[in-house]
Each structure stands twice: as C-alpha cells, then as structure tokens.
C-alpha cells in the first residue's frame, strides 16, 4: 500500500526513502549542526506520485479505499538514546500572536478516494488534483551538546485499523562552547565574551542566544589573528584588523581632519578621509584626494567615522548607459543599530586610543545620473564682424593757425564780386550755421573756394577795415580718413563680391563708403555757444565746408550712419582753435623840423617839406604805414566837437551864408583858452598844424548871374604854370526874383553840365534858405562853386563874370583857394612803435592797417603811466585824434569787436610827451 509516497526535506531535496521487506518506508533526516540553545528546523513534505489525465504528477497522499483514512505521526521510543530535544511543532494562530506549539502527534486526512478514477498496480489515476503536501515541522533545540536522535513513525489509520507505513530517524548534533578557546584567549589577555556574539557580521540578530558555532570559529580566528591586533592596539592597523575580524570587510573607517588653513574658504571644516588601507574603496578615494595627509594645513582630530555601503555598482548599464547598482543588504536598520553601534563601542573600548572616538556611523551609496557633454562641431566661417566704423577726420587747413577772416577776402581769389550771377553774395552773406541751406553744388564750390583761399593766403595783404562786414573762419571738415580702406586690406576676393549670377554686388563706391549712407557733424564751441549739427548724404557731407563765426575753441564730433543701423562717432575736443588777428596801431603827427638846408641829410631830390623848412623824412612811400586814402585824409573822420570834447575834435566846415566865402569852420582842438603848453613846446609845430582838419578845396560864390552873362574861370597848371581859361554863357532865363527857386536850380544844373574843361573842374551848388522852417527852400542866396578835388589841379587863379549888359548884377565873391591841412609827406611823421613828441602835439592814432576784419565799436583808452593823477581818457571812434598836453609816458589801449562780437584788444606804451 501507498507504493508511491515521496518524502522531501523541505524544498531542498528528495529523501529517497525506500520500503523494506516489510513494506515500511525507512530513512533518516539529518539536521544541520546547531549551537546549544538555538533552534534548527526542517520541514518534511510527504507527497504521492499519481497520474492525472495520463501525466505523472505529485499529489496529496490519497486514500486507497473509499473509507476515510489518515496518516498519524508519532514519536517511537527505542531502547537507544531517544532525544526529546527533537520535536514536532506547528504555529498556533488562535491567539493574538502566532505561537510555536509543540505537537506530540499529528494526523492528516488523506485525499478522498472519490478523486481516484482507477488504482492499478499501486498507481492511482486521479480525476482532480490536490497539489499540496503533508507538512511536518521538525525542530532541534537542546542545551546538551552532542548527537540527538529520535524516531518518527507514520501510521495509516482507516476503518479503525492502524498500519505502520514509515520509520523516519531524525538526527541532529548540538555544538557547545569550546571552553578551551575562551581560556586560551584569556591567557593571552584577549577576551571575546559570549556577549560579543551580536557584533559579528555573520550572526543572525534574530537569534536570542549565542551561536557557539560562530563563536568557536571566531575565537579560534582571534587566536590566530591576535598577533596582528594585540601589539598594535591604538593604531590604524589594530582597528582595521579588528573590523575585519568581526567580519566587516566592506566597512570603511574614515578619520576626520580639520582644515586649519585660514587663507581658504574651507577653513575650520572637517574632512572625512579614509584611513590608509581601510578598504578597497577607501584607497580609491584616498588616491583622488587633492591634498596629501598628513599636511601642515590639516590637523588630526582623533574623530572617526564608520562608513558602510548602501549599494555597489554591479558592472552593468541601463539603456541610458548609466551604471546599475545593486543594493547591498548587508545591514538592515536594526542591524546597524545593534551591530555597528556595538562594534563602535567595542572598537573604542578595546582597540582605539583613549582620546579617539568614533563619532558617527554613515551609510554611503553611489547614485549615478547622466550628465551629457554634448560636443558639436560647427563649421563656422572665421571672419571679422565689427560693428560700426573707425571714425577719423581732420580739420583743413591743418598745422596752421586759424583766424577770423574777412569773407570777401576769402571769396575774392575764386569769385568775382561784381558778378551777381555767381555765388559771391550767397557765400558772403551766408550767416551763422546756414551751411545746411546750401545745395550740393554750392557746397562743392565753397570747398574749392576755401581751399583756394588758403592756397593763396599769402598772396594778398588781407587788410580789412570796414565795420559790420561778413566775417568768419573758413574751414573744411574732412572725414575721408574714415574710409581709407584699400583693396589690399579686404578679407575677401573679387569673386566673393559677385552673386551667383555674376553680378557685382560690391562696387568701388559701396566699398569705400563701407555701407555708410549719412554723415553727421556736430560742432560745438567752448565759450560762445556755437552749436551746430549738419547731417546729410555721405557724398555731400564727407567734406563739409564751414565758416565759423567766433574766435573760440571748437569741438567736433563726426558721426557715421550705416545701413546696419549703427552710428559710429568720434569726438575731438578743442580740435579747432580760432584766433583773432591782432589790432595794429600806428600814429601820425605833424612835425616841423627846425632845420636849415645846410643841416639836411637828404639830398635836394629826396627832401620834403617846404622851402623855409626842409624836412628829412626817411619813411618811404613803399613802407605804406599809413593809409593814404583813410587816415591821411581827415575828411574821412571828421570828429564833432559835441561828440567827445574839444580835444578830440577836428576842424569841420559848415555852411554859413553870412560868411564871405559861403562857409565857416569850427575851431578844432587847438583853442587859445584851453592851451596849457608853453611857447617853447611848440617849436616843432607850425601855425598850419594848429588847424586840425581836412584839406580845404577851392571855392567861390556866385551871388547873382543873368541870362547871357559869361562865367570866366582862369586855371593855372600847378606844374607848368600854363594858364587856361574856361567860359560858360548862361543860356537859361534869368530868374525873376530870389524866390524863384526853380529858376536858380536850372542855372545850377546848367553850370554843372558844362563840358568846358575848366568849368567842369567845379561843382556848382545853389544855396537856398528856408525862412519859415517848412523844409521848403524859400530864398536863393548864392551858388557855391567848389573844386571837385582837394588839389591845385582843381583850383582857379581868377574868376569873373562878363556881364551881358550893364544892368546885370552879376558878381563873384568869396574866392578861396586850395589849402592842404591833411598830413602830408612834407610835414608828417608816422610811428608804429614809439614816438616822442612835444606837448600839445596833435596825434592821430589809427588801426586801419589791422587785418582784424569787421572791426567796430572801438574804445580807446589813454593812460598817462607816469602821472596817475591824470585820469584815463576814453574815446569811442575808429580814429583817435587827440592833443597830448600833459607830459609823461602814455599807453594807448584799443578795444574793438568785430561783426560777431569777437572782442579784440591791444595796449601799447607807444608815446612819450616831453
């Protein structure tokens, strides 16, 4: 019966029990060695080999009859040593917690026979399967060392009949503590007490008693290893060997080092460094340290750390090529607390120096993440890309002083001032900051004009005197330097400049302008507030002609605007410094040399003066110090007595119908009552010098004349002495009365239109009187004939009227001949630097040889340097005429300004009055 039962030791192997001759299964089950006090268990599984649908299977043991059948398990007492330390047990789940419960016997109902389709030759053919097994739990626990044997018998019970089926011997050995080792260790001074069993890595912390198998082995190991530990207690070696001894071969011992280098940021921080030869991984870490130990920047702290692993890379990689790690289940959290803290205290107590402490237990793991380092190889063309441009410019003319110039002088070398069709007047009257209003053609012409002006600068004198004339400093702002690229500097070839169709994209014009389309000039003066901005096309504004009005320092900024939207600029501060030309002074005065012909130095031909006072005037005409047409002709600057005072005045003629010759003169500066000089002071002054005034032209009065009367004028040629006579017969009707203003005007006009060579030397002016002040002439007084020039050539030697009849009242009176009072070559001295004069000398000081254009608002200041009690004398006119009465040294200061208010000043100590 039950031919096909199979016995298994747990899930490990088939016990291969076989039946004896009595048909009883027999066999032994060997339990592993177990320490005393500990449990060793196995599970015995009993199954039956059956056939289900033709296939062999193992099944729960099945009854062989339809009667209810059970297998009963009992311990059989033998005559030998039966150990009751081997037991059957089960889990009792009836309480709140599972309890292990020893069973004396066990019974199992067999699989019902109704599931058997056929039972042939001991083989059961099943219809359904029950693939569970009969499980018997066996355990050995004893405090008695040595072998333990017990026999388990299996009985089949059916219908009240009990049949022995199997005899199973259970064998186990219990290992006790080897006391020899304990004593030997004690003899060597080492201890490994039973309480230390928990420290071993191999020990199962769920065991509540010491595992003497482990303890015996470890004690023996310690005996063998003690010579590597005991002599080195207090060293790394002892600690590391002790750690290894307890089985912790993967623990790394790290020591804390304190950074004492105050110069770095990690000062005062602890670094955990594996001690040498601590572990394979620890050595790998040590080799990568950036600092070496021991060192003078790291200090020992005698603090240690036990470091265990959470995982280890297992050498495989995932689909992202990240290393896989395997969790190392060396320690559960409970094990860490129980074992490692136990190890820590054991090490501190027995193996570490007294001051050394293990201050923490740390877990380390490797966790990999992917950090991609992507490297692209981009083939970029290497080129230069510079935004904007290197702006450079210059001011033309370069390397010379710039002055405010008379604009007419600037224009004259190029333009005809009389050609109204030209641009002479446009440029002349351009004004301030109006260069923008010029056309491109105008600007081009003005560039040429300015260039030519500076080319011909030294060809003319550039004297300029008229006030309020257009002035300015002509310059050119030249930005050409900004565009000085040449083809040799190009970073591309000519072929690169073509598009795929062969069209040339870059032309010479595109190239050198560098895509700049506009230029802006900003000119700012330092003190006078000139601030102008000119912006325009590059072609037009690259060279900008300018006329700057002020003597000032100018800053210039050039800006370029290109097609990429960049504005480049460059500013040069105070790049233009425009000055004013000096005011130049010279003086003239009349001086009579008290010389006789015998003392003369110059020859007859070269002498000047008069017969009774020959002069040695060594100044030649060519020196041209004084302007003949201006200063030497006082008619140009008649000074009214009312304006500045008597001493500044000059003799002035005024019409006086009651005067015999039709006019009178003011006194001029010399007046007897105001004279303070001595007679001796005037030895170099002639009587004529006292009349400070213009030349006197010839004149005569025609008091009455009738139709038919003949005006006869005789003229003597001043050189040849030849006498010519001019005549004119009055053809107009004789005016009826003196009130016939119109009639007398016609007579005057008739005379003025005479073509006679002598008669036409004179201007005829009809003089009327307005009696009732209604601005209408009422009464004819006379006709005043005046020589057209202040010259003997325009003088008469005799004048008369040949009456047409005796009834004519015609007469001529008031004949006055030419007389020269202007300074002349014969009696005048000119000085530019310094002069010594007598008191009461009348001096005219002029600045009309200055090249300071547009000069006006002259302010003269005369200062007697040697006598401060004499107050300064001020005078406003372009010519200073003055009688210096007081002796001493005089400084003459002239302050003037030009058209745009540029102030100029000159001060000279140029006079001594004796």
């Amino acid at each position, binding site marked *: 019966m039950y031919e096909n039962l199979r016995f298994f030791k747990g899930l490990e192997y088939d016990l291969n029990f076989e039946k004896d001759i009595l048909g009883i299964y027999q066999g032994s089950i*060997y339990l592993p*060695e177990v320490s005393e006090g500990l449990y060793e268990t196995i599970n015995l599984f009993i199954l039956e080999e059956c056939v289900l649908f033709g296939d062999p299977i193992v099944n729960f043991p099945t009854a062989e009859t339809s009667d209810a059948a059970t297998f009963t398990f009992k311990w059989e*007492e*033998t*005559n*030998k*040593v*039966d150990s009751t330390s081997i037991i059957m047990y089960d889990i009792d789940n009836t309480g709140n917690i599972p309890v292990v419960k020893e069973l004396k016997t066990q019974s199992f109902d067999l699989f019902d026979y109704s599931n058997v389709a056929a039972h042939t030759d001991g083989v059961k053919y099943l219809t359904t399967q029950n693939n569970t097994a009969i499980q018997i739990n066996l355990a050995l626990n004893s405090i008695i060392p*040595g*072998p333990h*044997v017990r026999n388990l018998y299996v009985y089949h019970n059916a219908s009240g009949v009990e049949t022995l089926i199997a005899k199973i011997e259970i*064998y186990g*050995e219990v290992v006790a503590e*080897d006391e*020899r*080792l304990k004593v*030997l260790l004690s003899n060597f001074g080492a201890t490994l007490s039973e309480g230390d069993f928990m420290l071993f890595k191999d020990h199962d912390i769920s065991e509540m008693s010491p595992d003497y198998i482990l303890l015996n082995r470890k004690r*023996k190991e310690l*005996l063998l290893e003690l010579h590597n530990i005991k002599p080195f207690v207090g060293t790394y070696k002892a600690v590391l060997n002790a750690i290894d001894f307890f089985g912790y071969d993967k623990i790394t011992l790290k020591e804390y080092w304190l950074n004492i280098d105050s110069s770095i940021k990690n000062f005062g921080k602890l670094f955990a460094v594996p001690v040498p030869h601590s572990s394979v991984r620890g050595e790998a870490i040590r080799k990568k340290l950036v600092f070496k130990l021991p060192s003078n920047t790291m200090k020992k702290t005698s603090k240690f750390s036990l470091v265990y692993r959470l995982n280890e890379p297992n050498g495989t990689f995932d689909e992202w090529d990240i290393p896989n790690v395997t969790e190392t289940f060396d320690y559960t959290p409970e094990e860490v607390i129980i074992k490692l803290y136990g190890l820590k205290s054991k090490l501190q107590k027995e193996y570490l120096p007294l001051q050394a402490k293990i201050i923490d237990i740390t877990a380390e793991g490797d966790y990999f993440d992917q950090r991609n380092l992507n490297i692209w190889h981009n083939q970029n063309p290497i080129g230069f890309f510079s935004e904007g441009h290197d702006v450079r410019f210059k001011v033309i003319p370069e390397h010379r002083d710039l002055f405010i110039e008379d604009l007419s002088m600037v224009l004259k070398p190029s333009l005809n001032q009389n050609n109204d069709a030209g641009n002479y007047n446009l440029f002349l009257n351009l004004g301030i900051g109006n260069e923008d209003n010029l056309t491109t053609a105008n600007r081009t012409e003005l560039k040429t004009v300015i260039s030519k002006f500076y080319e011909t600068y030294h060809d003319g004198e550039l004297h300029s005197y008229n006030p309020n004339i257009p002035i300015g400093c002509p310059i050119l702002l030249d930005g050409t330097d900004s565009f000085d690229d040449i083809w040799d500097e190009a970073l591309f070839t000519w072929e690169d400049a073509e598009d795929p169709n062969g069209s040339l994209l870059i032309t010479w014009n595109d190239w050198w302008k560098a895509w700049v389309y506009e230029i802006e000039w900003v000119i700012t003066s330092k003190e006078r507030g000139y601030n102008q901005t000119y912006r325009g096309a590059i072609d037009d504004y690259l060279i900008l002609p300018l006329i700057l009005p002020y003597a000032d320092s100018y800053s210039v900024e050039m800006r370029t605007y290109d097609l990429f939207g960049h504005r480049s600029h460059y500013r040069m501060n105070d790049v233009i410094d425009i000055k004013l030309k000096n005011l130049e002074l010279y003086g003239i005065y009349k001086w009579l040399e008290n010389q006789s012909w015998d003392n003369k130095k110059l020859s007859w031909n070269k002498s000047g003066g008069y017969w009774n006072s020959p002069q040695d005037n060594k100044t030649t005409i060519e020196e041209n110090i004084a302007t003949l047409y201006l200063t030497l002709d006082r008619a140009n600057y008649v000074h009214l007595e009312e304006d500045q005072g008597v001493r500044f005045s000059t003799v002035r003629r005024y019409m006086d119908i009651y005067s015999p010759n039709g006019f009178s003169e003011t006194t001029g500066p010399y007046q007897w009552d105001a004279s303070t000089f001595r007679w001796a002071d005037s030895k170099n002054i002639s009587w004529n010098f006292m009349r400070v005034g213009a030349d006197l032209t010839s004149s005569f009065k025609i008091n009455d004349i009738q139709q038919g009367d003949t005006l006869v004028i005789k003229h003597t040629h001043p050189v040849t002495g030849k006498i010519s006579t001019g005549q004119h017969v009055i053809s107009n009707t004789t005016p009826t009365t003196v009130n016939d203003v119109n009639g007398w005007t016609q007579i005057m006009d008739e005379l003025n239109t005479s073509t006679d060579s002598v008669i036409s030397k004179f201007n005829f002016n009809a003089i009327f009187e307005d009696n009732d002040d209604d601005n209408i002439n009422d009464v004819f007084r006379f006709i005043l004939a005046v020589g057209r020039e202040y010259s003997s050539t325009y003088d008469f030697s005799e004048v008369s009227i040949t009456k047409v009849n005796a009834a004519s009242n015609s007469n001529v009176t008031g004949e006055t001949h030419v007389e020269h009072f202007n300074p002349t070559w014969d009696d005048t001295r000119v000085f530019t630097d310094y002069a010594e004069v007598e008191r009461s000398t009348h001096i005219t000081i002029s600045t009309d040889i200055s090249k300071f254009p547009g000069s006006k608002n002259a302010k003269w200041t005369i200062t007697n340097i040697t006598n401060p009690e004499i107050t300064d004398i001020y005078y406003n006119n372009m010519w200073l005429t003055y009688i210096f009465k007081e002796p001493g040294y005089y400084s003459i200061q002239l302050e003037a300004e030009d058209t745009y208010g540029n102030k100029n000043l000159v001060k000279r100590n140029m006079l001594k009055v004796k």
Partner: protein
Amino acid sequence: MGLFTNLLGYKVRRRYDFAKSRKDSRLNAGYNYDDNLAGSEFIGRSLSGHIQRNETIQHFLIFVDDILKNLLKATRHLKNYKNYTVKPDDKQTR
C-alpha cells in the same frame, strides 16, 4: 522501559565527524580501544571468567570497562585541551 534505555547516551558517536575524517589515513594515532575491543573486553581480559558468569556483573563491567578506557583517554583529552587547533574530542591524538 529497557534496562539500558537512555543509559548509553554517552557512547553515541557524532555521525558528522565521520564525514569530516572519512578519508583520513593517519599514522601514530594510538590504539583504538573503542572500536577494536568489544564492550567489557578490555577489563574482561584481566578478570576471572568466573566472576563474569553473573549477568549483572557483566552489565556492570560494561560501564567499568568504559571508565577504564576513559582513564586511558585522559592524556588525549589533556593534550587536546591545550591544542585549540583540534577538536576537543579529537580521536586521533595519541
């Protein structure tokens, strides 16, 4: 309960030790009284057969024989005790 039930437990051999020394071929191991002599043979050889006729005496001599053998094995035990490299009950020590 038999006469010797649980009485000869001290004579039970450790089976696993056989596996550990099964192939051993060692010299100078000393004479194996346990295996080479039958129970009570050691003392029986020195004792009158007359005395041994009594069954009770025979049963008693089994235990006396074991005591005598243990006395002989005392030196081995002491030798083993100081030699931690062998098992405490090593049989090969002479």
